[in-house]
């Protein structure tokens, strides 16, 4: 409706006066230039103010020594990078397991046959519990508790049970995302599939899931980004990964700079991942229009 009106007005005004159109264009260019200038000036002045004012604070030298200490940064950064490999490894073996187990849970929640009600109940209770309990608590309980039952080595490894805890927690979130995707596919498609003679599982496999999984990809990317930071929680039960290594350096030098190094390493991964998720979302929006 409003679009029609907009296309209507320029045509009308063009007829009224070619002169005024040119003037308006010039005014628009002027306005655009002015706002660019304002944006530039305000950005520069904000950064300049931070750059000048913060070091004027009485405690700045101490803060700089404790948080932005180049000497310590240089000394610790290579080891931190090395420790990050462990985060990547944990992430690499946990993420596929989370995707699979999360999907299984989502399908269990969508089970429609009355005979499968226990399965549905299980998935519902599971999701409630693991989404409600802090991840770190799950890691402690499973990471220390299950090996405490007397498993022999190497089956009591904190790497194994820490990862299991991560998978259990994260799959609950991922399952809910999948479920949202499954439920977003219109009921008429199921009906159509049924009328073509497809079974429930075939409908799921060939009609619903391919659409649902694609639709929730950006939401699951968010879960991945969050998982990428939460693998650091495994350090609580022993593994010396990036965050723990930074903590060790912090204690050793009584200086927080190693945490800055760790933050930079995390950012180097999460920022590209976030941008990628954004572009995925934008592309999907475009396709849907």
């Amino acid at each position: 409706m409003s679009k029609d009106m907009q296309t209507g007005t320029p045509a009308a005004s063009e007829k009224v006066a070619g002169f005024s159109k040119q003037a308006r264009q010039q005014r628009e260019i002027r306005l655009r230039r002015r706002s660019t200038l304002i944006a530039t000036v305000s950005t520069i002045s904000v950064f300049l103010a931070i750059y000048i004012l913060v070091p004027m604070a009485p405690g700045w030298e101490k803060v700089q020594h404790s948080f932005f200490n180049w000497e310590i940064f240089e000394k610790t950064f290579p080891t931190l990078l090395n420790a990050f490999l462990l985060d990547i490894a944990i992430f690499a073996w946990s993420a596929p397991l989370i995707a699979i187990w999360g999907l299984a849970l989502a399908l269990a929640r969508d089970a429609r046959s009355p005979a499968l009600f226990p399965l549905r109940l299980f998935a519902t209770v599971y999701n409630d519990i693991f989404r409600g309990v802090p991840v770190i608590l799950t890691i402690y309980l499973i990471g220390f508790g299950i090996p405490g039952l007397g498993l022999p080595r190497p089956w009591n490894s904190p790497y194994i049970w820490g990862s299991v805890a991560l998978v259990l927690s994260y799959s609950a979130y991922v399952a809910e995302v999948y479920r949202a995707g499954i439920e977003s596919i219109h009921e008429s498609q199921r009906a159509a599939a049924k009328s073509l003679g497809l079974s429930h599982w075939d409908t799921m496999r060939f009609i619903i899931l391919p659409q649902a999984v694609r639709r929730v990809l950006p939401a699951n990317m968010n879960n991945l980004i969050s998982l990428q930071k939460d693998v650091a929680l495994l350090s609580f039960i022993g593994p010396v990964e990036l965050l723990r290594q930074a903590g060790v350096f912090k204690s050793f030098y009584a200086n927080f700079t190693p945490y800055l190094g760790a933050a930079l390493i995390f950012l180097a991964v999460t920022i590209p991942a976030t941008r990628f998720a954004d572009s995925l979302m934008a592309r999907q929006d475009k396709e849907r229009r």
Partner: protein
Amino acid sequence: MNIVIKSLVIAGAISLMSGTALAAENCAVGKTVTDGVLTIGTGNPAYFPWVIDDNPESGQGFEAAVAYALADRMGFDADQVVWTRTTFDQAIQPGVKDYDINMQQYSITEERRQTIDFSSPYYTSAAAVLVRKPAVEAGAQPNIASLKGLKWGAAAGTTANELINSLIDPEPQTLLYDDNADITEALKSNQIDAVLLDLPSALFTAAVLLDDGVVLGQFPSDATGELDQFGAVLEKGNPLLECVDTALAEMGADGTLASIEARWLQSETGVPVIE
């Protein structure tokens, strides 16, 4: 005449004595966070045998006892001592501190001195190896060759990790934990074989927290160097440091520290020295 001289000498001696006593006691005046009060930081929780029952106000436990003796030397009565709880991080963060001195088994290191000040040491601890009986039965012995093959654990915020790397350099990767409670749990679940602790903590963990704990051995203190001398932490450049050091030196010289140590920390006899 004679009497006058005598009494003058006595008066002079008395004033001299009280003068020096006052100098030590006056040293801290105006240098504390709260005037007339000495604020001492401890851990949350504070562990046995450094503080008994997590109750430093009782003066029970090695560090609590040292703290009150130290406060007394610096001219603070017991009721002028206030305790506050801090983490390691709060003790080293830049900015205004809410404690005057912080005592929670901080090992004195050169690297840490760049950011905080340490008093002179009030305790020198031997680093001890804690294992469980199954490890001993499997053949663990108090020598470096045997220790190299063990799976090690340590508390991340301590110097233990450094010591493990420099003294033992074990083959499996060392696992690190937040505190002694977590380490004990990992020992129980057999995820690690051995832990490096200060000797008093090792003896306590073996005797109380574990059913089958064994203190396998201790490192000679010349091997561990400055790494396991405990000092009180002060904000960098705090003028109070001088007063604390003076008081600690007095306490060391007249045997106060040794007697507190004898009362609260188990004797070190019976634990073999690692070769």
